[in-house]
């Protein structure tokens, strides 16, 4: 089979990819940056740098997923339009959904986990820095494998849920589905490892004095999210593995013939899939809790309730998966149970909303960018949660299911919740990551455009659902009265697109013109990350802080005033640091090779990749890696450069 594509759109994408790659290679070579790239980034095990790499990938994927979205919205702007053909449209909505959840939302979260959690709990790194690098590179190569599918052989086209029997060989013979299966599998291993890593980090590496009930709310939300990851992702792993076996070696787990049962896949998929939506929303709740308290200059209201509701949600999220297929004909008893359980999730969610509101009540509210996104989140999410409850009413869901009403619901919670949350986090912790602030004005424009665009884009979709329009239609008849609302929705999507571009512009502009953050505490923060200089030195804390209560840094400032940041030079001890390693990168590259081989059923290539993985594991097992000690002299040099001595 020739890999060179025949269609103009695919050819154009391929040419663009090749040109950009050549450009990057040329620039790196010209400025002699290869060594720097290898030493400082590819081999790093520093959680802050890994976080930044996750962040860059997430923003790139947001861009790609966003372009997919605009292509779809152009196609739907008019009935019977011939802009995309059926095959392309189907590929594009599949890649859009998969990318946004797995290759945009997940790395965005992991960026925040990495950048913030160790700083917030007073740790020098995560529990397993090497494993952390493995996670990142597995995600990276998984995403790469997924993204090349469009130009090499054809993208998956069975929807992000990838239901068999449509996704079985009989109906989808090309490599697209195999790309989906293998890339999700590879990045999924990384996600499980991240879940374990941060769970252990939070349980074991908190600074002295930081009991669980003194932990900042973001760290609590990461803990809850990690618990869900650890219990939910294995179900996805199993579903993907069984379907891969069906396709690659001819088993019959989910086929139509020979006793396969596609319904089993749907159960496995949603046993992961529903918890997944909570995996991505819980950390966003955490971000909002931090932001609302900082920008209201007030303690977080109802801390205990907030913790209880996080944990309740993470447990309950395992008990609701059937609401994604009420229409599969389960008995009335089963549907009733899952309907009531799903609605019940709204209770702790509602409690959180009231606690956020009352954090602001009798506070002093500053409308900086992180807070603006927080404020926009509340009504958006309240509405999205409300339509979630409507969907959970099984008899009503028989009408909503797979219609545009459902599409509107989950975009409202995913964009209004997860994307707003991650943007709030991005604005909030940006100075901590990079040492300068983002200019407000462009950001405000972006904020308003994105928000208005959101409502213009998605409110009409509720109406379209009620008018009977189903999802995943590449074209629709003109006599149904759907034309106008579809056009409005497309306009909204473009307004959001402009909003996104302004955010990019804001970042680029601020690199030169943003105000430097010399204090390390630009927002008058409350948690430990704000006690550190920005950007944070690679060892994080010179001395591990002693925590005396919630909002530890706030208390230190109250107690010591300006003295809070300075360290007596004499008290500096040597610091033990982990070594960098190229193995995580190389092993993940081997995973990529193996995955690519399996996609095209080239078993020799797959074996080469497999052997590569084996060698890397073997080398790591034999490695004697004691890390190294950072001398007090070196530490003193770094600290005094930051004005901290």
């Amino acid at each position, binding site marked *: 089979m020739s890999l060179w594509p025949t269609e103009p759109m695919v050819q154009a994408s391929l040419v663009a990819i090749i040109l950009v790659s050549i450009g990057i290679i040329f620039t790196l070579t010209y400025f002699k940056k290869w060594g720097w790239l290898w030493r400082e980034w590819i081999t790093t095990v520093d959680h802050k740098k890994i976080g930044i790499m996750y962040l860059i990938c997430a923003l790139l994927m947001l861009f790609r997923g966003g372009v997919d979205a605009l292509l779809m919205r152009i196609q739907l702007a008019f009935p019977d339009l011939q802009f995309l053909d*059926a*095959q392309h449209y*189907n590929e594009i909505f599949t890649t859009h959904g998969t990318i946004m959840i797995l290759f945009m939302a997940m790395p965005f979260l992991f960026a925040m986990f990495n950048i913030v959690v160790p700083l917030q709990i007073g740790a020098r790194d995560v529990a397993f820095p090497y494993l952390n690098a493995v996670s990142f590179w597995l995600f990276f190569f998984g995403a790469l494998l997924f993204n090349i599918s469009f130009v090499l052989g054809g993208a998956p086209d069975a929807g992000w849920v990838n*239901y068999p*029997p*449509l996704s079985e060989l009989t109906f989808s013979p090309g490599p697209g589905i195999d790309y989906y299966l293998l890339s999700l599998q590879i990045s999924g291993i990384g996600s499980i490892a991240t879940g374990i890593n941060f769970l252990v980090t939070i349980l074991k590496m908190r600074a002295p004095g930081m009991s669980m009930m003194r932990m900042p709310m973001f760290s609590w939300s990461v803990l809850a999210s990690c618990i869900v990851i650890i219990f939910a992702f294995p179900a996805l792993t199993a579903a993907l593995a069984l379907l891969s076996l069906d396709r690659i070696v001819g088993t019959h787990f989910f086929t*139509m*013939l020979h006793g*396969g049962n*596609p319904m089993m896949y749907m159960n496995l998929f949603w046993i992961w899939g529903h918890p997944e939506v909570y995996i991505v929303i819980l950390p966003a709740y955490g971000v909002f809790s931090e932001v609302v308290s900082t920008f209201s*200059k*007030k*303690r*977080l*209201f*109802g801390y205990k*309730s907030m913790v209880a509701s996080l944990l309740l949600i993470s447990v309950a999220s395992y008990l609701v998966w059937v609401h994604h297929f009420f*229409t*599969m*004909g389960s*008995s*009335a008893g089963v549907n009733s149970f899952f*309907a*009531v359980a799903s609605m019940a999730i709204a*209770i702790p969610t509602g*409690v959180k*909303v*009231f606690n956020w509101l009352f*954090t*602001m009540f*009798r*506070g*002093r*509210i500053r409308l900086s960018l992180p807070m603006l996104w927080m*404020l926009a989140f509340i*009504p958006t999410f*309240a*509405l999205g949660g*409300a339509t979630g*409850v*409507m969907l959970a*009413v*099984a*008899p*009503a869901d*028989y*009408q909503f*299911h*797979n*219609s545009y009403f459902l599409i509107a619901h989950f975009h409202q919670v995913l964009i209004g919740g997860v994307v707003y949350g991650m943007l709030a986090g991005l604005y909030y912790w940006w100075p901590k990551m990079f040492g300068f602030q983002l200019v407000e004005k462009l950001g405000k424009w972006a904020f308003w455009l994105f928000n208005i665009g959101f409502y213009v884009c998605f409110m009409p979709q509720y*109406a379209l*659902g*009620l*008018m*009977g329009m*189903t999802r*995943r*239609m*590449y074209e629709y008849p003109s006599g149904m*009265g759907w034309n106008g609302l579809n056009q409005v929705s497309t306009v909204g999507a473009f307004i959001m697109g402009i909003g996104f571009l302004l955010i990019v512009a804001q970042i680029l502009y601020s690199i030169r013109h943003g105000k430097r953050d010399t204090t390390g505490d630009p927002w008058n923060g409350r948690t430990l990350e704000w006690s550190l200089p920005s950007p944070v030195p690679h060892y994080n804390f010179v001395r591990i802080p002693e925590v005396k209560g919630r909002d530890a840094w706030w208390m230190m400032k109250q107690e010591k005033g300006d003295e809070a940041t300075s360290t007596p030079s004499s008290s500096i001890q040597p610091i033990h640091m982990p070594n960098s390693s190229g193995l995580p990168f190389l092993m993940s590259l081997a995973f990529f090779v193996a995955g690519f081989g399996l996609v095209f059923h080239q078993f020799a290539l797959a074996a080469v990749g497999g052997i590569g993985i084996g060698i890397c594991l073997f080398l790591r097992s034999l490695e004697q890696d004691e890390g190294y000690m950072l001398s007090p002299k070196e530490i003193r040099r770094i600290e005094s450069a930051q004005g901290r001595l």
Partner: protein
Amino acid sequence: MNEQGVERDETKMRRSSLGKMLLLAVPFLLTGCRDRFLVLDPAGPVAETEYNMIVLSAVLISIVVIPVIGLLIYIVRKYRDRPGNDAPYQPEWADSKRLEIVWWGIPIVIIAVLSVFTVRDTFALTQPPSDQEPVTIQVTSLDWKWMFQYPESGVATVNYAKIPAGVPVQFVLTSDAPMNSFWVPQLGGQTYTMPGMAMRMWLQADQPGTYYGHGANFTGKEFAKMEFDVIAEKPSEFKEWTKQVKESKPKMTKEDYKQLKEPGVVEEKTFSSYPSDLFKEIVMKNGGIYRKEEHQHILND
């Protein structure tokens, strides 16, 4: 002071024009084309039940959503960090048992009420919507078309179905292609059509009319074309139609079915008969054979 006044006027103006825009949008959305909102325009008891649940759930959740948005606006306006803002400031106040009980309590009550009705109607919808003698229609989703078989009279149609108005119709659903979903919004919500399964769904049209239907679960390339009409007629006319079809339309042979099953889009078709046991065969060969007991009662009815 002057400046502040100007600012306030401006926001007021902005707000009122926003209000006007919303007011303009409401009739456009609701009255201008209410008949377009198929889900909100039920034409039978099943869709009616579902419609009532939609309205009830919308009302109940507004009890929480509206106060939340109201509170948000109030709080943000009142507690801005402005010099001279003399609203109370209590940075350490972060706990109130009484308030917490209120906002755990209210959602619990709302969800409990909604749950009772949900469970009631989930059970109700598994029963025939009225006690008239029902009609059975077997539905098969194919790539990318719908086949309807009438076991009582032996006729078959493609991409449209005729039903008698005022009579409960038992649709028995399967698929000889990837899983789809059978949805006729004005008559009632959907059920999946699955290979190797025979699912039952009750619908009923109260009045004669033509009702839009569409597959609701993605099945590949031309899924967007899986539209069909359900045409309800007076029972006497329905009988008459069946008779005419029997007399004037071609038979469906095994060969015809094989062709129909080939992936592609086709026009409406009508057949006076079909190979005996075709539906059962479709269910059995796609895996029904492994779940015989489950389906026996539906297939033999």
